[in-house]
């Protein structure tokens, strides 16, 4: 193994063990209690997204012009009765063409609008297809057919049923636009939260070395870039242990109570396994990118007080990246989403959100390369700033120059 790489992992190993093999690490592991509280707040945000997506839901009836007129009249009578309870989603009437069944399933899978239930066929025996959780809308459509027939036939048929609907729930894999956005938001929030909890610690990572003078030993033995990367990897190892522990518990909970996963209604467009892998990779990138920034900024601090003072701008920076990425999750494909996907420090969050709403894989490969490049650039700049600002070697101008020092 290359000596620089070896040195990187030796520093990472030392940092990892220095954190994990202490009693305070147990306190660190309890941090999810705090996370659960924040998670509640995040859930509110996510439910707002979900609510807005619910407002965007549609139901549809594929009907002949004659049926449409009668159905509209029935809707006009029924809807005011139901509106006080939130009411069914907006109903759209779709002209009947060749095969209404194909049209119905096409509407449910549409990316343009969020159709959750569609009725087609003769009103006496209508077919209703709906998303699993749209049973209320499905019942509304069935009742419309029934009321339309009753009106046509002069009403008063006692408990006799005139319309016998066949109701079919679609597979859960058919995801809705709202569900995808919710999934995207959850991905952004989760990655942000875990990064906030873990990457922010890197701001004080060099304080130990500076206060006990070990930095001189490290700087003499290894390139500063290796020192910085090693420290980041060490802390990332701690983060992985943390995420692995709680993620494992969550997995056990989901295995024991499968309804939890169903209730979460996670429907990433790219597919759940790929989505989870991408989220893991984007968490790694988010950690490395933000961690490198914080490590570099913290390295310039001379005292613990200065490090404490730096906490605020660092938290503000993180929240700004979260805000940008949340906006991206809320409006996929918009110019703000594109900006958040390209801007290096919000890119991991925004791309995780994109994985929830867009099935194409190549943008993720490109984004991971882009983010990896920025991890390297950030570490190089941080190391150079440290060399200039703390070790007093070279000039500030040279820290941003293009003559990158060799790692080996």
């Amino acid at each position, binding site marked *: 193994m290359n*000596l620089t790489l*070896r*040195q990187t992992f*030796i*520093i990472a190993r*030392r940092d990892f063990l*220095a954190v994990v093999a*202490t009693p305070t690490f147990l306190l660190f592991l309890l941090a999810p209690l705090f996370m659960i509280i924040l998670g509640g707040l995040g859930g509110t945000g996510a439910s707002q997204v979900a609510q807005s997506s619910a407002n965007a839901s549609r139901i549809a009836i594929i009907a002949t012009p004659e049926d449409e007129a009668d159905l509209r009249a029935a809707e006009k009578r029924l809807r005011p009765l139901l509106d006080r309870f939130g009411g069914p989603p907006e109903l759209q009437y779709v002209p009947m063409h060749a095969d209404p069944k194909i049209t119905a399933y096409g509407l449910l899978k549409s990316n343009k609008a969020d159709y959750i239930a569609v009725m087609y066929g003769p009103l006496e025996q209508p077919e209703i297809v709906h998303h699993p959780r749209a049973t209320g809308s499905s019942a509304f459509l069935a009742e419309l057919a029934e009321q339309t027939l009753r009106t046509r036939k002069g009403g008063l048929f006692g408990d006799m049923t005139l319309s016998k609907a066949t109701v079919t729930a679609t597979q859960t894999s058919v995801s809705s636009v709202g569900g995808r956005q919710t999934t995207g938001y959850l991905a952004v929030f989760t990655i942000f939260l875990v990064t906030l909890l873990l990457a922010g610690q890197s701001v004080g990572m060099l304080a*130990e*070395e500076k206060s*006990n*003078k*070990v*930095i*001189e*030993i*490290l*700087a*003499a*033995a*290894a*390139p500063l870039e290796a020192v910085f990367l090693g420290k980041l990897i060490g802390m990332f190892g701690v983060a992985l242990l943390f995420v692995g522990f709680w993620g494992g518990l969550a997995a056990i909970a989901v295995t024991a109570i499968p309804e939890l996963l169903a209730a979460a209604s996670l429907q990433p467009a790219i597919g759940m396994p790929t989505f989870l892998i991408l989220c893991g990779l984007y968490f790694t990138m988010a950690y490395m990118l933000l961690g490198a920034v914080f490590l570099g900024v913290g390295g310039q601090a001379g005292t613990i007080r200065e490090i404490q003072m730096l906490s605020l701008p660092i938290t503000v920076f993180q929240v700004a990246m979260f805000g940008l990425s949340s906006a991206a999750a809320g409006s996929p494909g918009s110019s703000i989403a594109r900006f958040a996907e390209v801007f290096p420090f919000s890119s991991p969050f925004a791309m995780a959100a994109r994985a929830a709403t867009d099935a194409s894989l190549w943008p993720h490969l490109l984004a991971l390369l882009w983010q990896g490049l920025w991890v390297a650039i950030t570490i190089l700049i941080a190391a150079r700033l440290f*060399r200039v600002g703390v*070790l*007093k*070697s*070279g000039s500030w101008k040279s820290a941003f120059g293009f003559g990158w020092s060799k790692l*080996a």
Partner: protein
Amino acid sequence: MSSNDPVWAEGLIKRFDKAEAVKGVSLSAPQGEIYGVLGPNGAGKTTTLRMILGIIDPDAGERRLLGESNPRNASHRVGYLPEERGLYPGMKAREAIAFMGALRGLDWNEGRKRAGEMMEQAGLGASVDKKIRQMSKGMAQLVQLLGSIVHKPELIVLDEPFSGLDPVNQEHLESLILAEQARGATILFSTHVMAHAERLCARLSIIAGGLVRFEGTVDEARGRLPMRASYVPVKDDAELPALLPADATKIGDSWRFTVPEGGAETLVLKLIQTGHGISGLTMERPGLHDAFVNIVQSAKAEAAL
């Protein structure tokens, strides 16, 4: 000076905030020798060593370390004890030594094994599994020194290695340095305590005000000052001071003066002929301490001009 020497530097200059800390230092430490870098506080010794090691880059000048123009490329062949000692307080001594060796390319397990043996030899066998924070400052300093040589480097750079050590540990350290030299290592160390340099160094540089004011052997440094005599006459009377050199001063029964350039023979003959006799007479070269003080004071006087 040869650029093939393990340590070679030519015209090193370093500025901090526009002030020149090192103004053009050149030095060369020959293979297998113990080379001293001497100087008063703030002379630029540490900055020079850090430039030679590649921890910081010089603003001007050239350096070669073990034949490498980029000192970082030789870092695994070098051992370094910085002036400001630093170890992780929570680490066990054995682990600290192995960690420092691993940073220089030594296998971690081999480092742990060697750490135990070295600590045993240094009289720290009972503290192998003690954490650094549980050790005394002197013990921790020895641990750090062992950490800087555990990978058996070709070159060992020690910045003020004796400071903070009690006399017993200073003896330990001197033995250790000599043992490393016997192994074949070249040793470069800085100090402002002349006794160690006098005992250990084959050659040395004296830096003052950011410049090398002297380069050579200990004897050459001492040779820069004339010999001093301490004379006790048989008969001490009013005529005696006139016979002695002008700088003669009386301390107790003895007269102290600089031995005249031509030697002491003429003076001794005159003293005997005039009946003052010789009850006691010693002549010796001034020590490195005096030479050092003389060189540094000359540098200060030169700077004041």
